[in-house]
């Protein structure tokens, strides 16, 4: 509607500028739509808070609490309840729970985001590929997706993490866990993207592109991907939530990154050193609560995005 009014102004611009303008406008429209979802905004605020904490952690507490020297030099009492000096009490090694919590935000968010990038890349590539190619190649990718969709996620992640750890596949245990979560969580995305690709493929403008001689690559990157992208975006936020939960679970099982503090490894330590029977609630509650808040934030953002991007869901 507004485009019609502004034709004279836009006529003087190059196609690239026009495209950019159009994109900026639709972004602004999406944003104003997103702002109407109160829960989405709450999610963004929570997330912003945790990202800020993760970024400034080394400024507040310069020493990484996972360093051996930090553990040896800890001055607090072992497993002491909250006091003025230690607002969230201490751990079994006498470190401040608050320090660990702040540093844990870094690992949890880092693993969650990086694993999601791997997962979304794999899921999008395989999903678009299996939807676009109608031949054996597409069918093979579809089979692969179905197989991985059925294999239960946590047992698969456990088995992969164990094997990767023992053959020292990727060296760094942080990267190992990122890759393990990334390659176990893609199939859901792939199936979603595949379905959307199939529906886009049937539309007339793709037939036009084919008739005009557009190759597979051109069709996939110029026509299918832009149409699948909003769906991928909404799915990304939900995948981050799952990835963070996975990191917490794997760390709790002792398969997480070594020599680093994450919320999951805190829970593992708390459990392993008998925080439950000692009644050390200050050690148990905070890390889990942070996980819940961050996961909830991503879930709320994801649901709001879905509402913005697919209007028929809006009334739910």
């Amino acid at each position, binding site marked *: 509607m507004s485009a019609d009014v502004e034709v004279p102004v836009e006529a003087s611009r190059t196609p690239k500028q026009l495209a950019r303008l159009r994109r900026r406008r639709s972004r602004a429209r999406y944003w104003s739509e997103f702002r109407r979802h109160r829960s989405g905004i709450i999610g963004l605020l929570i997330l912003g808070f945790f990202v800020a904490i993760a970024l400034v952690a080394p400024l507040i507490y310069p020493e990484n609490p996972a360093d051996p020297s930090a553990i040896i030099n800890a001055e607090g009492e072992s497993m002491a309840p909250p006091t003025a000096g230690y607002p969230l009490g201490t751990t079994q090694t006498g470190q401040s729970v608050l320090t660990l919590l702040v540093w844990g935000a870094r690992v949890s968010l880092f693993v969650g985001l990086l694993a999601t990038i791997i997962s979304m890349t794999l899921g999008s590539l395989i999903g678009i590929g299996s939807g676009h190619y109608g031949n054996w190649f597409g069918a093979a990718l579809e*089979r692969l997706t*179905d*197989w991985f969709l*059925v*294999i*239960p*996620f*946590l*047992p*698969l992640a*456990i*088995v*992969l993490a*164990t*094997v990767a750890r*023992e*053959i020292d596949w990727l060296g760094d245990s942080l990267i190992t866990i990122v890759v393990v979560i990334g390659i176990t969580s893609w199939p859901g995305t792939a199936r979603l993207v595949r379905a959307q690709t199939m529906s886009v493929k049937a539309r007339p403008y793709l037939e036009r592109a084919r008739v005009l001689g557009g190759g597979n690559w051109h069709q996939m990157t110029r026509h299918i991907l832009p149409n699948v992208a909003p769906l991928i975006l909404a799915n990304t936020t939900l995948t981050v*939530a799952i990835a963070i*939960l996975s990191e*917490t*679970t794997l760390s*709790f*099982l*002792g*398969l997480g990154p070594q020599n680093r503090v994450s919320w*999951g490894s805190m*829970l593992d330590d*708390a*459990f392993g050193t008998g*925080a*439950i*029977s*000692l*009644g*050390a*609630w200050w050690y*148990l*509650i905070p*890390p*889990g609560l942070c*996980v*819940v808040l961050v*996961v*909830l934030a991503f*879930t*709320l953002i994801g649901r709001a995005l879905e509402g913005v991007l697919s209007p028929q869901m809006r009334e*739910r």
Partner: protein
Amino acid sequence: MTLLGESVGGGLPPQQVGAQGAQREVSAPGGLGRYAVRRILTGFGTLLFVIVFNFVLFRLLPGDPIGMMTRGKDVDQQQLAELRRQFNAPLPEQFWSYIRNPFSSNLVSLQSGESVWSVIGDSFWPTMLLLGVSTIASASIGIWLGIHSAWGRGGKFDQITTGSTLTLYSMPEFWLGMLLLIFMSTGVGPFPGFFPSGGISSPGDDLGMVAGWLDLAWHLFLPALTLTLVYLAEYSLVMRSSLIDEMEQDYLKTARAKGLRDKLVRRRHAVPNALLPTITLVFLNVGFVVSGAITVETVFSWPGLGYLTYTAIQGPDNQLLQALFLLFAFAVIVANVIADLIVATVDPRVRA
């Protein structure tokens, strides 16, 4: 004509829908059978993939499996030679013997030295008990919550239910378990510690029949409560959204126009049609349920398959881990086939 039939059929009480389904089967003989055969064959394909995957993955492991298997045990030279021969056989031959019998009793748990399948057999029933109880509880409570929040969509009940189920859904289940333990078993502050800190039964003498069951229930309560709380979120959310879908259908307007009371419209017309996705979810969720069992059983030292997995990771006991992975994957594949067959039986449209 068929279109009209579809939309009216959707609103009929279940018995009549069933009758109509039967009629359709007569017109297309063997429709369900053919579908079932095809679906079961795909299930086998998936199982084969898992077996191959499992084989390849664990062949990547370094080390001396024979040394680990026989350490500290009385093995004569002949047995040792036989084991050596098995492990040094060419890969295709190893693969063939693995494929022929993936559930072979040759696999030995490193920790106990027993066959992995007998170790797994011991842990099977505790897990079935825990998962069965919590699945039934979470599905029934979740469905009830979903129905009521969908029917009063946007109201207070809906807001509170959706909010709290989403929060429960975001929780690492083992963390919830630890919280319940610290507040209800250890007892912190005003909370009295009433429940046991773990295990499946009190140590000591064999209790009588009734006392034994009560003791079991007493131990089961906290882990089952944990899993129920975590799982009910998904049931409630799915039930809510599929009931909302049904609420927009025309046949509900018809039912109301007939003058049926709101409660009857809900119970007889909307809910039976919305129930299917939630019922199949029970089966589709098996993978998710298994994952929850691994961590929650660990927290409560519940002697089931999940706790066994934890000990296998800590070992590490790779043979046991491999067998457990195969078992979990097998369970999920079977559950998926069952879910699809249920849908196909109830709803002929998916058989195509």
